[in-house]
């Protein structure tokens, strides 16, 4: 059971991820639709884990990840990306993301990543 922040520019994806997390017994403490919002929500809500989409308008997931890790090097961030963004996935792991989930995903895979990140 963890307090989770869900970040994705698509309202549909936020709903899917939030539903999966809620069913898995986690608490979704907030949502954000772009990188700038993600950083603000992260500072405000101090979630234990966050899921972060890569392709987003305004500020993308990689730029947001970088700033979040600078704010809190122990932040637990799980990247969500569509198939075909391997280089960005690698980059995000180098920047300090704990795990990544490839879309389209199964609810179990999201829960597994959250469980692993909480270690």
């Amino acid at each position, binding site marked *: 059971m963890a307090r989770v922040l869900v970040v994705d520019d*698509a309202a*549909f994806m936020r709903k899917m991820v939030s539903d999966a997390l809620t069913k898995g017994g986690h608490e979704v403490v907030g949502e954000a639709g772009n990188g700038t919002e993600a950083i603000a929500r992260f500072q405000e809500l101090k979630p234990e884990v966050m899921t972060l989409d890569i*392709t987003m308008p305004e500020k993308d997931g990689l730029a947001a990840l970088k700033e979040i890790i600078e704010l809190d090097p122990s932040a637990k961030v799980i990247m969500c990306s569509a198939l*075909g963004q391997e*280089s960005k996935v690698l980059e995000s792991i180098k920047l300090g993301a704990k795990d990544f989930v490839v879309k*389209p995903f199964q609810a179990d895979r999201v829960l597994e990543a959250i469980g692993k990140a909480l270690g």
Partner: protein
Amino acid sequence: MSQDDALIRLGQSTSEAIAGVLEMFAPGKITAGEVSVIPGDKHPMESVPMPAVATSVAYVDGVTGGNVFVMTLDGARNLAAAMMGMEQPEDPDAPELSELELSAVSEAMNQMMASAAIAISSVLGTEVEIGTPEPNFFTEQAAAIDAYAPTPHAVRANFTVCGEPCRLIQLVPNAFVVRMTRALDELGAEMAPPAEPAGQAGPAAVRGSVAGRPSLSGIPVRVWAELGRTRMPSAQVVGMPSGSVVELNQAADEPIDLYVNGTRFATGRLMVVDGTDWAVRIETIVSSSNTSHESQLEVASWPESW
């Protein structure tokens, strides 16, 4: 290969990638249909039935061009319902999509085009990146035509999604089709699929061809070309002043070697593309039996940091 052939191949590999993603969202409810080149004198949105839900995704890196996935209102609504695990849409008679339904359709397009970008990357040999999806709802033809600037080439791929006709329109600039044609030519006849009978140009026909399956074709491998090698005592290396010349074992008129993840897999000729970039034109593919002991020197390992 003619430009039209290249456009059809582009359409087919994109169609296959898209159908694969759609199938995950709505299992058993997806059929990929014909791929065709849209004549240059027709605006690609001209024949689209109204009202239509259109989601566009542009390539932002690697290549330029646009992709518009056009669905009927019912098709979009049924797909959104399937993505949310529902048998039926919440409000099947609403005049427009709900915000959540529109978001689901956009997300589908995002994932479809990300998958298609892999197929294109594997043909072009460069990473292709996509922008964020832009959804539109059109009730009039004129608005749909105004929304997308025409390109010199366009390809149409038909689908049936949840019983409704849908189409992907690819807006292809000249530079893209030129690169695609050249890339397909360079991949060579050996890897190209046999000529397909007319009317059977469905995505299934390209299975196992250069476009490959996303699961395998998306794996990044390290590819490098080697001009030549030499051996010398370490003292000579550290004592080398700038300006000194190191002779390599390869003759200038000999083909150079191409390595994939440390394995010598082809020989080819060095060439220049776009007037600035080095490239290698493959002459022979090295068969797997004679990849080792070919050289007196070890295969160079790639620096870890790469």
